[in-house]
């Protein structure tokens, strides 16, 4: 579903040039969930933003659903992959009602007004239809993150890119949101790329985990490795042990 070859991202020019992502390659099969774990600044979010088409500094090759995508994407290509951001407070327009937030992707893609699709979208993520009338500040953090997920699903993408979707949430609410994501994945055969610094969240959700450090992948882990604690790469080990504190 996703193929990435020699992806490189650099910001700045001349002496200030900083290579953030150093030639990474990976593949994600349809229905699979790939996790990318690493510390702040390791480049994991940049990889995700390049996949989403939000960053255009990249070089290399990105293919979505078997088709190479250019830096400038077509509407159809944008619709393939949608993103859910970390902060549910910052990623939803504070002065738009929820119905407008949810209709916006359809309107932006000229797929009609979208009002009739708002209520089913809310119900899909377990929110009452009455929430359509509300403003974001009238919702809790967990409810807002559900809205963000509903919005990402409005264009019926095949790929969801999740950037720390639960790190702003309480553990009890985190469990609800992660369960929702698991259910949706099963129901719609979605492919996920999940980025987080928290190995326990990644290990719970993912079929395969890439450990990223300073712009490169240093290790690849499977759920079996977590279960048995068979992690040998020193950096992965540090992250694994830190997640138990």
């Amino acid at each position: 579903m996703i193929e990435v070859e020699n992806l490189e991202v650099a910001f700045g020019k001349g002496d200030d040039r900083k290579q953030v992502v150093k030639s990474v390659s990976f593949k994600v099969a349809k229905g699979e969930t790939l996790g990318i774990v690493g510390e702040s600044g390791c480049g994991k979010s940049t990889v995700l933003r390049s996949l989403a088409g939000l960053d255009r500094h990249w070089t290399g090759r990105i293919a979505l659903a078997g088709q190479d995508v250019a830096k400038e994407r077509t509407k159809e290509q944008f619709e393939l992959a949608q993103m859910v951001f970390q902060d549910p407070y910052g990623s939803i327009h504070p002065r738009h009602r929820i119905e407008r937030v949810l209709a916006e992707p359809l309107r932006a893609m000229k797929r009609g007004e979208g009002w009739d699709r708002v209520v089913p979208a809310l119900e899909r993520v377990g929110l009452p239809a009455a929430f359509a009338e509300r403003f974001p500040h009238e919702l809790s953090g967990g409810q807002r993150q559900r809205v963000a997920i509903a919005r990402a699903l409005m264009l019926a993408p095949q790929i969801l890119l999740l950037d720390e979707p639960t790190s702003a949430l309480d553990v009890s609410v985190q469990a609800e949101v992660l369960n929702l994501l698991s259910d949706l994945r099963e129901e719609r055969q979605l492919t996920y790329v999940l980025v987080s610094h928290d190995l326990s969240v990644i290990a719970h959700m993912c079929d395969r985990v890439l450990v990223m450090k300073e712009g490169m992948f240093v290790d690849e882990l499977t759920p079996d490795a977590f279960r048995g604690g068979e992690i040998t790469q020193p950096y992965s080990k540090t992250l694994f042990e830190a997640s138990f504190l």
Partner: protein
Amino acid sequence: MSAPDQTILSVSKLSVRFAQSQVLAVRDVSFELGAERLGIVGESGSGKSTVGRAIMRLLPNSARVEAERLDFEGTPLLGLNEAHMRKLRGHKMALIMQDPRYSLNPVLSVGKQVAEAARLHLGLGKREAYATASAMLERVRIADVERTMRLYPHQISGGMGQRVMIAMMLLAKPAVVIADEPTSALDVSVRGDVLKLLDELVTENNSGLVLISHDIRMVAAFCQRILVMYKGHVVESLTRLEDASHPYTKGLIAAMPDPRHPVKRLQVLDRKAIDAAEARP
């Protein structure tokens, strides 16, 4: 030198109500704190931060704080005026907040902020204050102190910011440190270092630490005693997670994903069962 079991902070039946609201944000919270690490755990809105702020007397005027007893080193805090409180805060009692990006002053350099604390609470002159600040920053393991002191908060990382915050707060060797989610804005990998550092300094000063967080596993690993708060009151007091008996505490523990014991679905809180358990006398 005070004995380790001596009570530093004594709280009995602390209640907080905001404005005209009939709901108590905090209801009958009691605990004693000696030179130890006490954890307060609960979800957002459980009142855990309000307890911390009520002790520091940092709640807005609209909040009505009542307590049978709220004594700090034998002095009733509720009877003190603002001027007196200001002398205690930052000097004898310190509060470390969640996000260093918001709790540090964005327009002052790191060195100036830490030195300000030394001037204010230790009464040092400008040069001595800078020297003390520099020593303290070294103490919290900041590499290249000279350079860091010239930087502004937006130029340093979150983990570094939290170390600066800790340096600033512990410089005056406070008797009580209240840390409100000190690590939730930080990466998992630096969390451990920051907690270890906090513990080291608090133990060295022989002071009491109240660690407030929603992360029950972290609190359990770090604290000797845990109070679990739900809807404004303490439902359970624990020394080990294994002893948890309240459905709320058990639910919080089960909601955390554990890489060693993978499950298909995470358990979510059964709020009806919790409220039923609460309704029972």
